[in-house]
């Protein structure tokens, strides 16, 4: 049996297994699931409850393995073989695995783990991933250290490792979502900013509901959030520190309204819409200063800017052609190229973190869609359709999109959904009340 290698990096994981990295050979290569093709048959796997190495650890062992399973199952790419179907137990993490026991229930992959507690509220989780039919471990075992309060993050990191090793994609489970939490009927709706784990756990509120708030956006480091608030009586852009919940107004020119802010990849530059005299144009500002630069100058509406990952260009929405369409221009302003040419109205474009696609909201024939297109506007694909879908945001790995959906009519309510860029695995993200305008954080460090 391969000797278990401990990684002693506190609260971090070690990226292991060079043999697996960038492997594209499929014929006799390791167990691998290709998600670009649109998976028809999810990969069956087993994750028996992690072994508790200390009495105090038993509380965490089962919870952590359940969150790992929830992450993997939630992708639609993996199918867990439930514990009731297992014919073997993992009672000792260090003992050799009897692969025949897991072959018999057709588990292609097996995840084993152990949990122990240390003093001062620390949890240590070790895990290994096996390719059952090849009879070998995939990558090296890893050890993760975290706090008891942070136990879900440890679970997400384990699941991220498994996901990456099996798909070859970057992970995304250890991430958060900032969104607008909504209460009350449609004509008296109260809104406040909230933040949660990507899967809807650990919701906390960042503002109270005394002022209308719109469309929060994470900074590239995930430590700050830009949003629009009516706190002053007029829409203005604020920046909020996620840790301290301290906030300050960024743009407050008298007689103007500002909204639709977004960070540049440098985390210093902010682009946004500013309305003066009824006309809305794009501006940029350095977050440390109050000096703004005008990027567009047209009588049309220019809004919803989003940067390319390299920061050189931005995609935005404009009705200069008569209807709202998508355009790309240099980050500092200049000539814009229209990229959307389909039938309908396009809005809220968001550049993928991988740089390859632009997600958008499309309104056509009385229905709303979330779609993606290449950055030149080609290969448009609509992923969803409903009475009102809008405001896409990308998972850190550019494989999943979250958005708002509002139902029709007087009782209409809002909620968050996610969908793969293949259009598969559409599902609601649980929130305590109504929810809209999600913004997905980068992967947490």
């Amino acid at each position: 049996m391969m000797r278990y290698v401990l990684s002693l990096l506190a609260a971090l994981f070690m990226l292991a297994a060079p043999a697996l990295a960038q492997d594209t050979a499929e014929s006799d290569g390791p167990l691998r699931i290709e998600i670009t093709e649109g998976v028809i048959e999810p990969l069956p796997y087993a994750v028996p409850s992690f072994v508790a190495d200390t009495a105090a650890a038993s509380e965490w062992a089962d919870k952590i393995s359940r969150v790992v399973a929830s992450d993997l199952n939630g992708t639609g790419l993996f199918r867990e073989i439930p514990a009731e179907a297992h014919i073997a137990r993992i009672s000792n993490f260090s003992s050799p695995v009897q692969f025949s026991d897991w072959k018999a229930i057709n588990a292609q992959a097996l995840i084993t783990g152990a949990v122990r507690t240390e003093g001062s509220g620390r949890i240590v989780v070790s895990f290994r991933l096996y390719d059952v039919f090849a009879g070998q471990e995939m990558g090296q075992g890893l050890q993760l250290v975290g706090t008891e309060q942070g136990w879900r993050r440890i679970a997400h990191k384990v699941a991220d490792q498994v996901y990456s090793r099996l798909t070859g994609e970057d992970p995304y489970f250890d991430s958060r979502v900032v969104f607008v939490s909504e209460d009350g009927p449609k004509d008296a709706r109260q809104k406040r900013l909230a933040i949660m784990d990507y899967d809807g756990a650990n919701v906390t509120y960042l503002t109270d509901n005394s002022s209308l708030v719109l469309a929060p956006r994470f900074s590239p480091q995930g430590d700050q959030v830009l949003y629009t608030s009516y706190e002053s009586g007029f829409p203005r852009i604020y920046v909020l520190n996620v840790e301290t919940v301290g906030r300050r107004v960024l743009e407050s020119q008298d007689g103007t309204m500002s909204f639709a802010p977004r960070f540049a990849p440098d985390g210093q530059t902010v682009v946004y819409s500013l309305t003066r005299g009824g006309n809305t144009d794009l501006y940029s500002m350095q977050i440390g200063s109050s000096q703004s630069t005008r990027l567009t100058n047209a009588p049309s509406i220019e809004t919803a800017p989003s940067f390319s990952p390299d920061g050189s260009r931005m995609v935005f929405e404009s009705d200069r052609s008569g209807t709202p369409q998508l355009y790309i221009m240099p980050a500092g302003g200049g000539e814009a190229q229209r990229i959307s040419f389909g039938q309908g109205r396009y809005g809220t474009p968001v550049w993928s973190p991988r740089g390859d696609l632009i997600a958008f909201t499309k309104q056509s024939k009385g229905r709303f869609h979330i779609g993606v297109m290449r950055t030149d506007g080609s290969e448009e694909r609509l992923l969803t359709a409903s009475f009102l879908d809008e405001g896409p945001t990308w998972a850190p790995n550019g494989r999943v999109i979250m958005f708002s959906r509002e139902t029709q009519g007087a009782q209409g309510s809002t909620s968050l959904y996610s969908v793969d860029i293949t259009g598969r695995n559409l599902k609601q993200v649980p929130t305590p009340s109504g929810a809209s305008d999600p913004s997905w954080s980068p992967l947490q460090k």
Partner: protein
Amino acid sequence: MTFLSKAILVTAGLVLAACSNPDRFDESGSASANANASIAGTAQDPTSPLYFQQAVGDRVLFEVDQSNLTPTATATLDGQAQWLMRNSDYNAVIEGHADEQGTREYNVALGARRANSVQEYLITKGVAANRLKVVSYGKERPIEICSEEACYAKNRRAVTVISAGPTS
């Protein structure tokens, strides 16, 4: 600040009135007809904000995706301009709104166009520019909540909300 808080109070009053209106689906019942205790004065007193809201008419409606003023709208705004010039103790915040068709950001910009159309018209009719402020709520503050044109038509509006002056 007092100006703002009054404007917000008045707005909040409107929302409450809309909520408690059992006839909100009745097309003939306009929201401005809902008597509303938080607006100062009586409907009989032509110098009161309540008179402005109910007798003069505090709102104009727009076509889908449009911000140009219809003949009905300009008639209402003529009355608003006259009232504002006669009652110079008051200022106004013009709130632009959109229906729920369209994205959130676009609708904020569209509501701003509508509020601006009203502001410019009132200025051309003689109201001092420094008495008028504009704000857009986009699709965030519908008064009618069905997802049909009957409701959308009333939500595509600009409302002139009277507040005590002078503006800051």
